[in-house]
C-alpha cells in the first residue's frame, strides 16, 4: 500500500501560482535593463552581402548591435539534447546566409523596446537572393538549391541532397513479405506545421552577478543544456555561467531549445548590463514548430488480418536548421512500429532541409506524425478483412513479455535498447472504451444520409519513458533540524507538476509526508545535474534518481536512530516521520534524529546524492475512441465525445496524470482540426497570431472522458511509467477513422478543416 504516491496531493506550487506569488522570468525587475530585438530576414534564402548599422548606431539608447560581420561563428545545434547531441551542428549565432523568412540577421539591445524596434528599421542589409525550397517533396530533387553548403557545419547526413538525417533499418524480408501477403495496404499522409503556443512565449533575462559571472534566467526545459550550449557559443567555460529556471508558463517541447540565451548573454557580456529577450507571438510561431512529415505505410497481412509485414517510409521536414532533425524522425518509427508484432519490418527515414520555419521537439516527437498514418492503415486493413477495428488491434498488438526488434534497432539517432514489455493494460482500456462510446451501435457510412452525419473512430498508441542509456538525472536530499528534508533536483517543472511528483516519491521512500519535503529545482549552481524535461522522462528517470537518493538517506537515518535507540539497524523501522525500535518499543522523531546528527554526537550531515539512468524505456499505452458529427454543407467536423484510457503504470499523482492526458488531447484536437500555417510564395507565415491561427478554446471542447488503467512497471519508481506526451497521438487518426465512418472519406492531409473536408465531399459527389 502506498502512502504518499498514487495520491492526488496538492500541487506543491499550486497556492503560490494561484495567488500570483510564484515568479516567472519576467517577474523580476532589473536596474538598467536592456531590451533585445532581432532584425529578421525578409527573404527565404540568400547571402548577406553587407550590413550597415551606422544610422541605427546613432540612435540614443542603442547599446549594441550584433551580426555576422562582428561576431564569431561557432557551429552548434540549438537542440537541447544530451552531449554529444544527435543533431547536426548547422546553426550559427549569425551566418552570412539566411535560410528562411524570419531567420536572424542582427540583434539589437537598447534601453527600451521602442528604441530597439526603431533601430531595426534603420539597419540596411544587402542580400543576394537565392532560389528557395518551400516544400519537403522538392528538397531532394537534383536541381534543388543547396541550403547548407557552408564548410564549417558538420553532422549533416548529405549536404548535397539537403538531407539533415537519414536511416534505414531492416528486420526480416519486407520485400518478400509484401509480395507474398494475402492482403496489402498502402497509404500515405502529409502532416502539417504547428506550434506549441505556450501561454508564456520564449523569454530570458541575462545579467552579471557581483563576481562577473553570467546569470541566465530563462524559461527553459533544459537548464544544464542551456549552460553547456551557451558556454560553447559564447566561448567561455561552463563555470562562468549559471542558469536559473523560475516558474514556466508552458513549453511542450519548444523550450527544449537553446537559441535566445546566448544572444542576450553576448549582449550582457559586451555591455555589462542586464538584457531581456521576449518573443512576440508572431515570432513565437516561427521560433520552433512541429516537424511536418510525409509518412507512407505498406502493410502485409494474411486473410485473418494477422500482420506479418510493415514498411514505413518517412520524409520529415526540419525547416532551415536541423534541430532534433534525426531523432524526431527516428521516433516516428521507434514509438509506432513496436506496437504491432510483425516478422518483417522496415523503417526508412529521411529528414530534409527546406527554407521554412525551423522544426524542433514537440510533445509526441514524431510518434504523433507516424500514428497519423499507421492507425488509419489498421482501419483500412480491418475493412479489407471484414473485421472490427478493435478486434484487428487486439489480435496484433504487442503483449506482456514480448519485445520488438525495433526497440533495439531504432534509438535516439543511433541504436536503441532491447525492451521487453513488463506492464500493459491496453486490452482493459479498449474494453472500457468500447462501452463508453457505444461502439456496438456503429454503422457504416453507406447507411448514413442527411446534412449532419455522425461517425465513430478509434486507435491505439504507445510512447516511451525517457531515453534509455542516455538520459541521466540526479537528486540531492539532506535532513534539517526539524526532520524536514531539502530535495534538490535538476529536473525541470514546466507547469507539469514534476516538483510535486518528485516530492511525493521522496516522501514515500523516506516514510514521511510530502509537505515535509522542500523542493528546489533547475538551477545549475544549486541543484545536481538532470538532462531536463523531455522524452516523457521526468517521473520515470528523475523519479528514479530521487528514490535512489532517498534510499541512501533512509539508511543514514536508520543508522543514527539505531545509535540513539541503542539497538541494531535491523531492528529500526521508519514510519510516519519517526524511527521505531521494534524490540524496545521506543521511538525517535526525524526531528530528534536530525538534531542529534547535526549537534549532539558523532555529528554529520545526513544527506545523499542519487543518480539514475534506465536500461529500458517502458512504453505507456493508450486506447482512444471518438464520436464526431460532420456538417456536409460546410465541411465542419464537430467532436462530440472523446474517450481515452491510458496505462501509465502507477500514477504518482492521478489528478496531475489525468491533467496531462486532458491537456494533450485538447492540444491534439486543435492540431487535428484547426491549427495550420499559411505561407505566402516566399514561405512567410501569414497568420502568425491567435486571431488567424486557431487553437481550440473552451467552447470547442467535446465531452472528454479520461480514465487511467494503472499497471505496475517494475523498472519505474513505484511502478510508474510516463504520461505527458502519449495523449497527443490520438486525435488525428481517431478522428480520421471517424470521418471515414461518417462520410466515407479518408483524410491524408491535415488539419481536417472545413474547406479541406468540403472539397473531398464535393469530389466524392
Amino acid at each position, binding site marked *: 500500500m502506498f502512502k504518499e504516491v498514487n495520491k492526488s496531493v496538492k500541487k506543491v506550487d499550486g497556492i503560490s501560482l494561484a495567488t500570483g506569488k510564484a515568479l516567472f522570468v519576467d517577474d523580476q525587475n532589473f536596474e538598467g535593463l536592456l531590451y533585445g530585438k532581432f532584425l529578421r530576414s525578409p527573404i527565404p534564402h540568400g547571402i548577406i552581402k553587407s550590413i550597415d548599422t551606422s544610422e541605427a548606431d546613432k540612435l540614443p539608447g542603442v547599446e549594441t548591435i550584433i551580426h555576422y560581420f562582428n561576431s564569431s561563428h561557432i557551429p552548434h545545434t540549438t537542440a537541447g539534447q544530451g552531449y554529444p547531441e544527435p543533431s547536426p551542428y548547422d546553426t550559427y549565432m549569425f551566418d552570412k546566409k539566411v535560410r528562411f523568412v524570419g531567420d536572424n540577421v542582427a540583434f539589437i539591445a537598447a534601453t527600451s523596446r521602442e528604441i530597439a524596434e526603431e533601430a531595426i528599421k534603420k539597419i540596411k542589409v544587402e542580400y543576394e537572393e537565392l532560389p528557395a525550397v518551400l516544400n519537403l517533396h522538392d528538397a531532394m530533387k537534383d536541381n534543388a538549391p543547396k541550403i547548407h553548403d557552408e564548410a564549417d557545419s558538420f553532422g549533416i547526413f548529405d549536404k548535397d541532397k539537403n538531407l539533415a538525417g537519414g536511416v534505414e533499418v531492416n528486420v526480416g524480408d519486407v520485400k518478400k513479405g509484401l509480395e507474398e501477403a494475402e492482403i496489402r495496404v498502402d497509404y500515405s499522409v502529409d502532416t502539417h506545421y504547428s506550434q506549441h503556443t505556450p501561454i508564456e512565449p520564449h523569454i530570458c533575462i541575462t545579467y552579471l552577478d557581483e563576481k562577473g559571472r553570467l546569470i541566465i534566467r530563462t524559461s527553459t526545459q533544459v537548464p544544464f543544456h542551456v549552460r553547456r550550449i551557451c558556454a560553447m557559443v559564447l566561448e567561455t567555460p561552463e563555470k562562468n555561467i549559471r542558469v536559473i529556471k523560475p516558474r514556466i508558463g508552458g513549453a511542450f517541447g519548444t523550450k527544449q531549445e537553446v537559441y535566445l540565451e546566448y544572444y542576450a548573454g553576448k549582449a550582457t557580456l559586451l555591455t555589462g548590463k542586464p538584457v531581456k529577450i521576449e518573443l512576440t507571438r508572431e515570432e513565437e510561431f516561427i521560433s520552433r514548430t512541429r516537424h511536418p512529415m510525409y509518412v507512407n505505410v505498406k502493410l502485409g497481412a494474411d486473410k485473418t488480418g494477422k500482420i506479418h509485414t510493415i514498411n514505413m517510409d518517412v520524409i520529415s521536414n526540419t525547416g532551415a536548421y536541423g534541430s532534433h532533425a534525426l531523432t524526431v524522425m527516428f521516433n516516428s518509427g521507434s514509438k509506432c512500429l513496436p506496437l504491432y508484432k510483425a516478422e518483417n519490418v522496415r523503417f526508412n527515414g529521411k529528414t530534409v532541409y527546406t527554407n521554412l520555419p525551423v522544426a524542433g521537439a514537440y510533445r509526441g516527437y514524431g510518434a504523433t506524425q507516424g500514428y497519423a498514418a499507421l492507425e488509419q492503415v489498421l482501419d483500412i486493413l480491418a475493412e479489407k478483412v471484414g473485421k472490427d477495428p478493435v478486434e484487428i488491434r487486439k489480435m496484433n498488438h504487442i503483449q506482456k513479455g514480448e519485445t520488438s526488434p525495433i526497440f533495439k534497432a531504432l534509438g535516439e539517432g543511433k541504436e536503441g535498447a532491447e525492451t521487453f514489455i513488463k506492464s500493459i493494460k491496453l486490452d482493459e482500456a479498449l474494453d472500457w472504451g468500447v462501452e463508453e462510446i457505444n461502439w456496438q451501435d456503429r454503422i457504416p457510412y453507406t447507411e448514413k444520409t442527411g446534412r449532419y452525419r455522425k461517425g465513430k473512430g478509434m486507435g491505439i498508441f504507445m510512447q516511451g519513458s525517457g531515453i534509455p542509456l542516455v538520459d541521466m538525472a540526479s537528486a540531492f536530499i539532506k535532513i534539517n533540524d526539524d526532520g524536514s528534508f531539502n530535495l534538490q533536483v535538476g529536473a525541470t517543472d514546466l507547469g507539469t507538476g514534476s516538483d510535486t511528483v518528485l516530492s511525493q516519491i521522496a516522501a514515500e521512500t523516506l516514510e514521511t509526508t510530502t509537505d515535509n519535503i522542500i523542493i528546489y529545482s533547475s538551477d545549475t549552481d544549486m541543484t545536481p545535474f538532470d538532462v531536463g524535461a523531455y522524452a516523457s522522462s521526468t517521473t520515470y528517470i528523475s523519479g528514479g534518481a530521487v528514490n535512489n537518493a532517498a534510499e541512501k538517506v533512509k539508511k543514514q537515518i536508520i543508522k543514527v536512530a539505531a545509535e540513539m535507540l541503542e539497538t541494531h539497524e535491523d531492528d529500526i523501522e521508519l514510519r510516519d516521520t519517526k524511527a521505531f525500535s521494534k524490540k524496545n518499543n521506543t521511538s525517535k522523531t526525524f526531528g530528534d534524529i536530525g538534531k542529534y546528527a547535526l549537534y549532539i554526537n558523532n555529528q554529520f550531515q545526513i544527506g545523499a546524492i542519487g543518480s539514475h539512468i534506465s536500461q529500458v524505456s517502458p512504453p505507456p499505452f493508450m486506447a482512444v475512441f471518438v464520436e464526431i458529427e460532420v456538417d456536409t*454543407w460546410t465541411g465542419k467536423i464537430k467532436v462530440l465525445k472523446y474517450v481515452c484510457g491510458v496505462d501509465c503504470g502507477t500514477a504518482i499523482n492521478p489528478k496531475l496524470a489525468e491533467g496531462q492526458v486532458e491537456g494533450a488531447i485538447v492540444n491534439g484536437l486543435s492540431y487535428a*482540426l484547426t491549427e495550420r500555417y499559411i505561407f505566402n510564395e516566399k514561405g512567410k507565415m501569414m497568420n502568425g497570431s491567435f486571431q*488567424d491561427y*486557431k487553437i481550440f478554446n473552451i467552447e470547442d471542447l467535446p465531452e472528454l472522458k479520461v480514465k487511467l488503467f494503472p499497471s505496475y512497471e517494475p523498472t519505474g519508481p513505484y511502478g510508474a511509467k510516463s504520461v505527458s506526451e502519449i495523449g497527443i497521438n490520438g486525435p488525428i487518426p481517431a478522428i480520421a477513422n471517424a470521418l471515414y465512418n461518417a462520410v466515407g472519406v479518408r483524410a491524408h492531409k491535415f488539419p481536417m478543416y*472545413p474547406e479541406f473536408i468540403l472539397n473531398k465531399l464535393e469530389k466524392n459527389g
Partner: protein
Amino acid sequence: MNKIFVNVENLADLLSIKGQYGKKGIIISGGTDIVVRMKNNMIDPEVLISIKKLAELKGIVARKTKVIIGAGTSLDEIENSTLIKENYYPLYQAVFNMASPQLRNMGTIGGNIGNASPAGDTIPPLFLMDAEIILYSKKGKRSISVTEFFKGPGKTVMRDDEIIHSIILKNNYLTEKNSGYIKVGQRNALAISIASVAYFKDKKYKRFAFGSVSPIIHLIELKFGLSDEQLLKEIESYITPIDDVRATKEYRKQVIINLVKDIYF
C-alpha cells in the same frame, strides 16, 4: 506627439467635439475593434473620443412596429433582449455567436457598424429588417437605409463630423421559425466569419444577405420556383469572395451555395 483622450458625457458635447476635430477625432465605443487596430499599428489616432459614458446612446426601445437600438448598446444587452430574440431573431443569433462573453460585454452594435467590415456579424441581419442608421452631427440628423450606408470595407457614407446615434429596425416579424443567421467560422468561439447567411422565408419570396463574401453586402430577394441553375446564377451575381488567411474564395462560394440551397429548397 501629444495624444488626446476625451470622455464625453452628453450628446451635445460629443457633436461639438466631433465637429471640432472632424477626421482626426476617432470615436471609441467598446474599443474591441479600434484598440486591436491601434495595437497592430494600423491606426494611430491623435484624438480618441470615448462615448462609453454616454447614456443617451444606450438601450433598446420599442415604438409601435419599430425598435430603436442606441449605437452604444452592448452586444450583450442585445443578446439578452427578449424583444430582439422574439421579433428579430437573426440579429439575436448573430450576436449570440459573436466573439466571446467578455467581448460582447465591451463591444457595441454602433462599433460593429462603424467598423464596416464585410465580416461584421450584425450587418447582414440588419438588411432583412430594412434597418435605418440614424446619424447625428452639429448640423442635424439624417437617416440612411442600411442598403445605402456601406461603401466598401471600412467605408461608409458617414461624414467626418457625424456619429452613429441609433439603428431603427423594421419588419418585426423575423422569428425563429421563418428566419435565421448562419455563420461559418474557423472554430466555435472567438472566430471571425468566413461566410455567413442571414435569411427570411415568406410565402411569396425569400430574402438573403451574405456576410464576408463581397465588399458591400446586398439584400437579395428571390421569388419562389427558381430552378437549381437559376438560383446558382442569382447567388453568383451577388458574391465576389476573396482569398485570405481564413479561407479561399472557392470555399466561401461553395458554402454560400450549399447553405442557400438548404434554405431555399
